[in-house]
């Protein structure tokens, strides 16, 4: 059964959102044979859902903007937890990354003088987000997708990678299955780039799709790579809350960027209390916590949210600049946003933590394994600014593609792996079909989502984090006895069964890192440690890694910024 002919690539990219596509384009442009694997059809990855814009200091609208200001905003937004090298490279290279997209055919909204228009967003000092109405992600992914397919990248759609294959501590391939047929597939590669996105499906209320099951985080962890900052999970302040079917669906920050106001049930602009200077355009961590508090203290809307209102703006401007929000509320909630306010509340949106990478090359701590995009950690620190994700994908996607190409060139000998790894992977994937009875993977996932939502959510405390850790152990035991109905042909129950393992592994890491960090900072808020600790925790990064088969959690010291960057914060 294990006699597969491995498909050979110099560089294999796992994940075809913005980061994966940009990495694959870069590796391929450097003349390397590049494969791109994705769980969904091409062009359906999470990037397509990004709405508000891509942050880059183009200074087309506000002349005073430059990379230093963008860098400073990013670090302050991340509560200084960011890897400063990544934040610096990101701020410097984002403008060129946006112009490159334009040269590849992306048609951004224009200024009066015919250049790329930029809008305001939370935590950005200047109008900085290049955008296309409220469908910027679609424009980006389509541009990258078309660039990629015309460049000869080989794409494996609806294919899930479940194992990385290794040789003497170096990643040399990947194993997975075709979702359509259930048949297995083996790749041999000189370098593997993970660009698998986030972890949202371990939470009940999330803007994330079924794909976000912590795959890349778990693959890297199992291969021995280090994860960092995993306690930092972003809750976007504005998800839909009503009706129940739409709960969690994203309401873009561009609504506030275009002038939308937040009010509580007493009609107060409550952000005046929490951040009188930036108001609605404060950072996401702060707006989310403020909404949470308003609702907790009894000033919420009928369905437990707050009001977000653009009805004071001219209706044609709302429809022109926020078309998909207009249709989303009209079609799904019977609300005409040009006349009535939207009901919104926090929704799990993004994980700042991820695979520890080298800022320049995207290399993880395991040779041959690189990462970019949401599954990589460090860039956003304790809280990501809106718009910085799309620019992150472009800047570090490109760098990881280049890094993988260089690694592949430097290690051009035959990459191999012990075939026993493939046989073991097969056995692990097929065992669920052998059980005559057992747990439904859907039931286990729902329990996991409740557990994480209630105990490792927006507001945390030690006892509940400990409870989550204990319960996760029980859930893992349940997940060890799954039962899957049907055949291997396009079987979502079977697929979820495997994804669950990834989620359970990473959920524990999130909970343990959250328990370890005894302070409140950015997206991590502890009721039992309410203050931000500038002496101890500001200097420490959490890490998680597998050592001798066991999870090890700890902290490491952050690198010092050079004086010329430090002076930006004086």
């Amino acid at each position: 059964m294990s006699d597969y002919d491995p498909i050979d690539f110099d560089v294999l990219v796992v994940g075809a959102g913005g980061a994966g596509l940009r990495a694959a384009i870069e590796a391929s442009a450097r003349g390397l044979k590049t494969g791109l694997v994705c769980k969904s059809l091409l062009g359906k990855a999470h990037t397509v859902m990004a709405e508000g814009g891509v942050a880059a200091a183009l200074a087309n609208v506000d002349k005073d903007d430059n990379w230093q200001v963008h860098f400073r905003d990013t670090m302050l937004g991340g509560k200084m937890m960011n890897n400063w090298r990544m934040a610096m490279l990101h701020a410097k290279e984002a403008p060129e990354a946006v112009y490159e997209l334009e040269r590849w055919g992306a048609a951004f909204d224009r200024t009066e003088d015919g250049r790329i228009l930029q809008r305001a967003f939370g935590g950005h000092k200047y109008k900085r987000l290049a955008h296309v109405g409220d469908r910027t992600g679609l424009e980006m992914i389509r541009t990258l997708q078309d660039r990629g397919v015309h460049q000869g990248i080989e794409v494996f759609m609806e294919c899930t990678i479940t194992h990385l294959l290794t040789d003497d501590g170096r990643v040399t391939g990947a194993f997975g299955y075709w979702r359509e047929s259930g048949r297995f597939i083996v790749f041999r590669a000189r370098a593997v780039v993970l660009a698998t996105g986030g972890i949202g499906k371990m939470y009940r209320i999330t803007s994330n799709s079924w794909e976000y099951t912590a795959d890349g985080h778990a693959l890297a962890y199992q291969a021995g790579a280090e994860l960092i900052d995993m306690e930092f999970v972003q809750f976007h302040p504005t998800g839909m809350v009503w009706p129940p079917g739409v709960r969690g669906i994203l309401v873009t920050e561009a609504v506030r960027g275009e002038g939308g106001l937040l009010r509580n049930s007493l009609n107060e602009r409550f952000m005046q209390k929490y951040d009188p200077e930036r108001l609605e355009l404060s950072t996401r961590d702060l707006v989310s916590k403020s909404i949470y508090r308003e609702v907790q203290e009894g000033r919420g809307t009928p369905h437990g949210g707050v009001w977000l209102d653009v009805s004071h703006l001219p209706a044609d401007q709302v429809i022109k600049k926020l078309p998909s929000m207009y249709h989303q509320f009209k079609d799904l909630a019977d609300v005409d946003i040009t006349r009535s306010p939207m009901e919104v509340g926090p929704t799990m949106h993004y994980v700042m933590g991820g695979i520890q990478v080298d800022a320049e090359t995207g290399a993880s701590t395991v040779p041959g394994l690189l990462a970019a995009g949401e599954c990589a950690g460090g860039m956003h620190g304790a809280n990501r600014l809106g718009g910085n994700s799309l620019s992150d994908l472009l800047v570090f996607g490109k760098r990881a593609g280049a890094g993988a190409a260089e690694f592949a060139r430097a290690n051009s000998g035959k990459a191999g792996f012990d075939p026993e790894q493939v046989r073991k992977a097969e056995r692990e994937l097929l065992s669920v079909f052998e059980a005559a009875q057992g747990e439904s993977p859907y039931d286990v996932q729902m329990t996991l989502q409740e557990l994480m939502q209630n105990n490792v959510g927006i507001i945390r405390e030690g006892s509940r984090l400990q409870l989550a850790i204990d319960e996760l152990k029980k859930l893992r035991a349940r997940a060890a006895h799954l039962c899957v109905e049907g055949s291997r042909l396009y079987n979502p129950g079977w697929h979820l069964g495997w994804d669950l393992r990834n989620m359970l592994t990473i959920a524990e890491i999130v909970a343990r890192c959250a328990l370890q960090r005894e302070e409140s900072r950015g997206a991590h808020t502890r009721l039992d440690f309410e203050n931000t600790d500038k002496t101890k925790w500001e200097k420490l990064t959490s890490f998680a890694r597998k050592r001798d088969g066991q999870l090890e959690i700890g902290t490491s010291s952050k690198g010092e910024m050079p004086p010329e960057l430090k002076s930006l914060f004086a």
Partner: protein
Amino acid sequence: MVQEEGRQITVRILRGEGVKTQEVEYQVAVEPGWVVLDVVLHIQARMAPDLAVRWNCKAAKCGSCSAEVNGKPRLMCKTRLDDLDLTKPVVVHPIKTFPRIKDLVTDVSWNFEVNKKIQPFTPKKDAAFIYFQEDIDRVQEMRKCIECFLCQNVCHVLRNREQYQRFVGPRFFVRLAGLEMHPLDDADRLKQIEEDGIFLCNITKCCTHVCPEDIHITDNAIIPLKERVIDKSYSFWNWVLQPFSSK
């Protein structure tokens, strides 16, 4: 048939692999504001764990969950139960034009192959990339396409006449129109557009009617492309002068 407690509706989903299919009936307790995709995912989680369906964003942004609901091609994530007659069963079938893999999942790979053949954006040499909003309003309309392939699904040329070799379908005329109308694009795709079968379209506007992004596919993409091809290839003067032209 599977039944559960609560406000009940009846749903019939066409299930099966390849050509072997049958409608399976489910009684589902629904919640306020649910869309058809909520029902399908609920059935998957509670009653039919191997029910195959594609979805991603659940917010009409990715174009994954195309299906035929009560005979009408729709995105399931955008189809509210409140808008359907719930005294009758809600019938969910996969899109018909593409080969069925399993349950609601069809093989749409043909579209991705067609896309590869389109000449990509080719900017003018040394273009300064200064252009104005009114120059790209129409381009942006074309680029709203979320590739749900509902237009491909309803187009007679594909659905009934199966002209897959001679016709790229409305989706790709939309892409071609977006490229041709870009103020800085310098490629000439008109000959290719003719070979892509633009004149097989007989303007019944079925594609426009099903487009969840409200792209005016026929009026704003296909007809302008036809006019451009005709202006270039079939004008009287071209016909008269062609024998003398070096091209």
